[in-house]
């Protein structure tokens, strides 16, 4: 079966233990989570959880139904036509060329956001695939630490 990458948004009641219900459902039923982000929806009692997963159409259908079955879940949708973004931060030794780093970050919607005594931090925000490309490219500047945020997505 074809294992395609899927992005699922889950709107949940903003209450204790709701995240463990979702995470537990994935682990308990053997579904895979590639990334998961969660934050409250402003001016509401709900949160939005964005989950990136991989699976066949049948598996994703089942994931969506099982998510729906959880009592605090309001809505579940799988995105077809969406804008998807991810953020990443990279810590680089100050010995590297600032100009080159700045230029590279710029190409991926990013910039240098912090410069300390020994290291600088550069951030980018772009489509997840392009963030991956950026992280590949930044390797030549000997990054000491990389943090990815996971995807957030919005229907067009």
């Amino acid at each position, binding site marked *: 079966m074809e294992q395609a990458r899927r992005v699922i948004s889950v709107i*949940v*009641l903003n209450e*204790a*233990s709701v995240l*463990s*219900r979702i995470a*537990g*459902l994935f682990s*308990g039923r053997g579904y895979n989570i590639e990334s998961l982000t969660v934050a409250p929806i402003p001016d509401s009692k709900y949160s939005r959880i964005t989950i990136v997963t991989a699976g066949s159409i*049948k598996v994703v*259908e*089942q994931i969506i*139904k*099982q998510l*729906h*079955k959880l*009592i*605090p*879940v*309001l809505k579940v949708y799988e995105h077809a036509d969406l804008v998807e973004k991810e953020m990443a931060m990279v810590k680089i030794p100050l010995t590297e060329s600032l100009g080159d780093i700045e230029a590279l970050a710029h190409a991926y919607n990013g910039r240098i956001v912090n410069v300390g005594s020994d290291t600088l931090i550069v951030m980018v925000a772009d489509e997840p695939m392009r963030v991956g490309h950026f992280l590949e490219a930044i390797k030549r500047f000997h990054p000491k630490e990389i943090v990815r945020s996971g995807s957030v997505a919005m229907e067009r």
Partner: protein
Amino acid sequence: MQISGAQMVIEALIAEEVEVIFGYPGGAIMNVYDAIYQQSSFQHVLTRHEQAAVHAAEGYAKASGKVGVAMITSGPGFTNAITGIADAYMDSVPLVVISGQVPMSLIGTDAFQEIDAVGISRPCTKHNYLVTDAKDLARILKEAFYLARTGRPGPVHVDIPKDVTAQIALFDYSKEVELETYKPTVKGNMRQIKKAVEAIANAKRPLLYLGGGVISSGAAELVREFSKMTQIPAVETFMARGTLHHADPLLISMLGMHGSYAANMAMSETDLVIGLGARFDDRVTGKLSEFAKNAQIIHVDIDPASISKLVNAHFPIVGDVKNVVESMMTLAKDQVDPLRYAPWHNTIANFNKLHPLSYTEEGDRLKPQWVVQRIGQLLGDDANISTDVGQHQMWTAQFYPFSRPRQWNSSGGLGTMGYGFPAAIGVKRADMERVSINITGDGSILMNIQELMTAVEYNLPVINVILNNNFLGMVRQWQTMFYDKRHSSTDLSIQPDFVKLAESFGGVGYRVTTKEEFDTALKDAVEKNVVALIDVVVARFENVLPMVPAGGSLFNMMLEYKDK
């Protein structure tokens, strides 16, 4: 009304018209037990193990159609109960399970008898709550009962810290349940139902595939009418036994791993499966790619996640079986010609004739199947039948003449040994008029034998019929068939004296080796109306047949087993 959290629990149970709860006290739940002591609106049945409390609540719920209630303390009280909770989850039994928890200030400190109860119950409950403030208790308990009985029923767990049961707060139970995020679909989509009825009218070999959902939605009577009106034959899952009367000419039998040849062949030959409240469990389908290969599938279920989970449905209908069948009947009246399926009936009659469910007598040795049939002959409709798990369970499902829904009560999904006796206690409590029989094995009965004390104390005379073959018979059967007779840890030759065991608890025991002795013992136990253990010595190496070996196809049954 300003009352304590403990008092709120009592008030909520009264408001829900609960007449009995099953439980076991302990430190963290003591405030509630103190409040139970001071009320007389409902009975508390003290089981002798927390697992048994939950099974008893299950038995009560299944026999009565009401929500069962169990109460336990924190830590080990709760972990003991989890098997029962998981069992109820797998079989969609409506329960509210209330547990004590250590005080809020101690949560997370590894306090005495502390365990993350909601963390453990999360994957095996329909929903669960940790109550952190007594002012939420009325709403939570009301939601718990509502969730347990609506939609696809199931167990709901409410964990209450000790200080919350002591806290005084406002109690108002009058507010309607409002759950924005939970709205089960009860009415089926009319357009889909129309299409499904058209498919039925055009089918040549339609087959009703009835699951436990028919019974829990209270649709059994309606399904009987539907089947009669359309003349569509039916197979039942293990959970659905009793939906159709055993003598109904349209009932083929149970299908699946130990279903009848005719039922499994009908499923393999049908051109239209009408699945009602059934979930295409692996013990039913066998090899999925070969299951009902020639058929289109109508699947009616209240749980959308059950539809097309394992077998793709051509006509998916989310809704309550009762509602959907009602609509189907209105349409089918004019559209479906009941005479149309006569050739199909002939085919099925031939399957039935070819390999009926049977067993062979062997001299004087009692056959377990005979015992089951004999109970049926002697008690029939007057008994409610529970079982434990194993060979005896399958023989009961195959051979007992069930005549009504809720007469049958067994652990299907989880397959919990030790279920039968406490469940039969709950069944008895729900239906005092009828005899409550637990057909069990010599392995299973010892898993909750302490419940003899509960049954005796509360005068709930359950009759346990032990089909004793000195084996963990079902595992032994698989070892014989698939493990070259290496009977690893299944020989139960060393046994207690069941007669003395029963007597020591204040019950009555019988040891039976012949047909006459069995009749005498059963009649005596029924007449005396006492808690009984009837230890029936049966043929040791009898196998449950026919059988679809795990992963095999339904049409490829093992009809007999020849010892090599």
